[in-house]
């Protein structure tokens, strides 16, 4: 179990009001969360040099992730000025591009 505190991003969380018998000033809702990205730690503090390798491994994107991010960036580069592109039948917009750039930056591959 992990407790998150994040923006209620309405593009990723559908908030559907539930009808109630009274007490309508404060809404009650059903929430449908679809692939909500929550930024996490970018690293952590080590107390012994032996830990550095494991930490770097955990926080560095894998080669598959870097390759996927490269393809996203390349798709946008191929259509300058486009806000939305398609890759493998998937619709990608600017947040996808930003995330891919971030992945490359983390992987030292930008």
């Amino acid at each position, binding site marked *: 179990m992990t407790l998150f505190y994040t923006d209620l991003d309405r593009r990723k969380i559908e908030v559907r009001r539930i009808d109630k018998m009274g007490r309508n000033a404060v809404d009650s809702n059903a929430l449908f969360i679809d692939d909500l990205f929550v930024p996490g730690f970018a690293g952590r503090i080590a107390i012994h040099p032996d830990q550095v390798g494991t930490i770097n491994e955990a926080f560095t994107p894998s080669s598959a992730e870097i390759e996927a991010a490269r393809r996203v960036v390349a798709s946008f580069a191929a259509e300058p000025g486009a806000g939305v592109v398609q890759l493998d039948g998937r619709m990608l917009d600017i947040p996808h591009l930003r995330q891919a750039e971030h992945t490359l930056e*983390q992987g030292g591959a930008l």
Partner: protein
Amino acid sequence: MDFAVTSLQQEINESVGKICRQFGDDYWRRCEEEKTFPHEFHAAMASAGWLGITMPEDLGGAGLGVIEAAIMIHAVTLGGGGYSAASAININLFGPHAIVVHGSPDQKQRWLKPLIRGEQKACFGFTEADAGLDTSSIKTFATRAPGGYRITGSKMWTSTGQVADKIVLLARTTQAGRATE
């Protein structure tokens, strides 16, 4: 054991009551009929400092405890808004408490201050359709992803979801039955 009300608690009761009396039956009837959140009441409680009653003093809160919060909520429910008025503000008393206790100084500054000032509202995403009080059986899942987590699932009976800027969201990071902690 002494159950007498302290002068501070008496003062809380009176001060909160004074604010609540500014919001009469007409105000609450309109919120009820139009299904609109009582933003003005929320703002009035924030500007008098009550939304930070359980939050640290160095962030603008009052650093008080559960008894004082209960006295405050009691005074709120005595007003025209009843439990609607309580529901409009009570997330602040307990929802972000994990941040109060475990948050880094930076997280407290960024996340608690706007809640105390009433600039942001948070909702509390714990309950699910198949897991009410049995919190350990929730299904919403957070998967590790580059730079963070990706969360998919659903929540039920989330109060103030229509007006909230932030969400305290509980999700599994291990499959049910496989958790070791």
